[in-house]
């Protein structure tokens, strides 16, 4: 950031410095609250706060693992996330392929309908899903034990309604770069429609399928508005979290945030490394085509990439250090803090008493 400021200052105009400052402030705002929350996860204080700092501690992480409701919610969230991926990715794919084929006149209508779930408030989607399947269940005379009333099923359906549209957008943008002649070439060479789809289109869509799946899982995992209506008597990580946050705050929620942030950062790092590898491979191919290079260098497995190894090492070392530092001397520190608090309280009691005494003494002085 300072380097940016200096670079901007070198090119002088005040506007540039202003812009750089604005960008810096913006990112501070973006990360500040999250970083502060992360810090509170390591404070032994029972209330999530940065100051007063009591003891460096990892006990809130331990509390996390022992939290039954949270773990139950986490399990449901994963199940629902996988269900949504299984439903929304094919649906989004079909939706995108269909868009390429509907006639000129029908296209705006079709697009409006399938894109609408993105714009409909999640609350409304949740309610409509709940009402609809309830009515359908009643029509079939299904009992309350059937899937029509099952929180996990309803949540998968409710979330997939709009997540399918996200996936569709991913597929549309990839399909726009597809050369339709490839499909025709496959047919021309004798492939059936299904073979052309499987051998030509599907491999081309593979990266989009992967990103749609990741997107679907993340969107499902973090959804609250729809889920809170469809989940019925079950719970997901977000509903458990919301309950916790609303009715009694403690730093184990911060600890969870730290875990999630660490996982996503690691994930982002893997993605970035994978992207660079692809770029390098593409550059190499072009060199070969222009005769500058004889053959490809042998590919290392992704996990052995030095950059990735380094990042993983840093993560593991960081976690280990935190663990070590957070458990060593924690009891002593806590005792000390407690002692200090006790002394503090005593002090306050003493001043109070003195003041009382003084007040009681004062009228006599009069």
């Amino acid at each position, binding site marked *: 950031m300072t380097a940016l400021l200096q670079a901007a200052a070198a090119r002088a105009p005040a506007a540039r410095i202003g812009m750089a400052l604005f960008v810096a402030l913006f990112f501070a705002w973006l990360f500040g609250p999250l970083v502060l929350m992360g810090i509170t996860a390591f404070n032994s204080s029972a209330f999530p706060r940065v100051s007063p700092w009591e003891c460096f501690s990892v006990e809130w992480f331990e509390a996390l693992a022992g939290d039954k409701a949270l773990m139950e919610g986490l399990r449901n969230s994963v199940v629902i996330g996988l269900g949504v991926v299984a439903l929304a990715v094919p649906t989004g794919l079909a939706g995108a392929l269909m868009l390429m084929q509907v006639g000129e006149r029908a296209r705006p209508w079709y697009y409006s309908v399938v894109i609408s779930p993105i714009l409909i408030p999640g609350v409304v989607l949740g309610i409509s899903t709940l009402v609809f399947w309830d009515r359908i269940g009643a029509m079939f005379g299904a009992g309350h034990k059937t899937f029509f009333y099952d929180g996990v099923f309803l949540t998968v359906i409710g979330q997939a309604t709009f997540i399918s549209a996200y996936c569709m957008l991913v597929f549309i943008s990839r399909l726009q770069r597809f*050369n339709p*002649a*490839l499909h*025709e*070439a*496959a*047919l*021309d*060479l*004798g*492939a*059936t429609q299904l*073979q*052309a789809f499987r*051998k*030509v289109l599907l*491999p*081309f869509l593979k990266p989009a399928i992967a990103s749609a799946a990741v997107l679907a899982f993340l969107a499902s995992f973090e959804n609250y508005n729809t889920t809170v209506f469809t989940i019925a008597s079950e719970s997901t990580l977000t509903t458990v979290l919301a309950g916790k946050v609303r009715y009694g705050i403690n730093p184990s929620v911060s600890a969870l945030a730290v875990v999630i942030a660490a996982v996503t950062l690691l994930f982002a790092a893997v993605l970035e490394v994978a992207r660079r590898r692809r770029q390098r491979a*593409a550059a190499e*191919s*072009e060199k*070969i*085509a*222009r*005769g500058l290079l004889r053959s*490809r260098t042998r590919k290392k497995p992704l996990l052995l990439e030095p950059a990735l190894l380094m990042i993983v090492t840093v993560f593991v070392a960081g976690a280990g250090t935190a663990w070590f530092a957070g458990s060593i001397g924690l009891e002593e520190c806590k005792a000390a803090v407690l002692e200090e608090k006790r002394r503090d309280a005593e002090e306050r009691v003493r001043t109070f008493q003195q003041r009382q005494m003084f007040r009681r003494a004062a009228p006599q002085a009069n």
Partner: protein
Amino acid sequence: MTSEVALENVWIRFGDFVAARDINITIRAGEFFSFLGPSGCGKTTLLRAVSGFLEPSEGRVLIGGADMAGIGPNKRPTALIFQNLALFPLMSVWENITFALEVRGVGAARRRKRADELLELIALPGQGDKTVGELSGGQRQRVAIARALAAEPEVLLLDEPLSALDLKLRQRMRTELRDIQRRVGITFIYITHDQGEALTMSDNIAVMREGVIEQVGDGNTLYDRPNTAFVASFVGENNLFRGTVGAAERGAVTVETAAGALRARPATGAALAAGDDAFVFIRPESLRFDDAMEMENRIGAHIQRREFEGSFWQVFLDADGAEQPLKLSMVNDDAAAARRPGQRVTLGFAAELAVATRAGPLAAG
């Protein structure tokens, strides 16, 4: 194996637009046949009807005598080389080449062997494991041909496959394509807007304009005996005189033009009669200075400028009464060197080398 391709009364419509109008043509088995025409003339549409990507609105497509109605592109004995080649970017070269065998369920070992044979044929031995991205333009071109040939088609369809290449490579690929066609011996149907490609490679050429076939014939016939004004102006260069038919006899007509009365051979099927609007075409190399006095047609002109082209000169002339400059090409010799801009000359040409067509649309440019 090779097959004859026939189009019978084929009409292709897209809504109100007619892309092909009553096409009747027979392409002999084993022939190198070209459809030549400017972009938008319907030649690609016809090719798609042959390959099965679209069904004609009317009429029949026959390959080897069999009606292809309702038979999809994957069931027809044709293979198409796409304009942008459409190589599968995620497959290696050898997988590309043997895709047709893969979808038929041929095992990997046999496919690999066949790929090596075909790589040999297209002079790219040992390159099978490269990715498509690692090939140069010309190499890609040849891989596309090998991929189509691997399907063992009876008819190979080529949709302007050379248009993406640079000039040098394009010229080399012409020879190579013709060579491959002779070796595999199957019918080639070639689509192009480049008359040079069509003339050098083809046994027969169909010239198309706005969904209609104007003329079918070998390169010589099209060049020397164009049937319509469009063919005369599209194939090769031509000088044009507009006029009205004065007298029509057997084998020769007289056309009254601004440059005087010109005698010419009437185009086949033109059926010119006195009073008809007509065009007279004469090739630049058929115009003469020297023995002009002995020619049946003579025109007075000024030399405007000349361009040196190596083995010959292009001379541009302002002819008396002509609306656009005439072009004359002559062999580069002493006589040619003596011709200077500004000179007054008399041009002549033989009636049997000039063609009179019915007045009609001309090729653009």
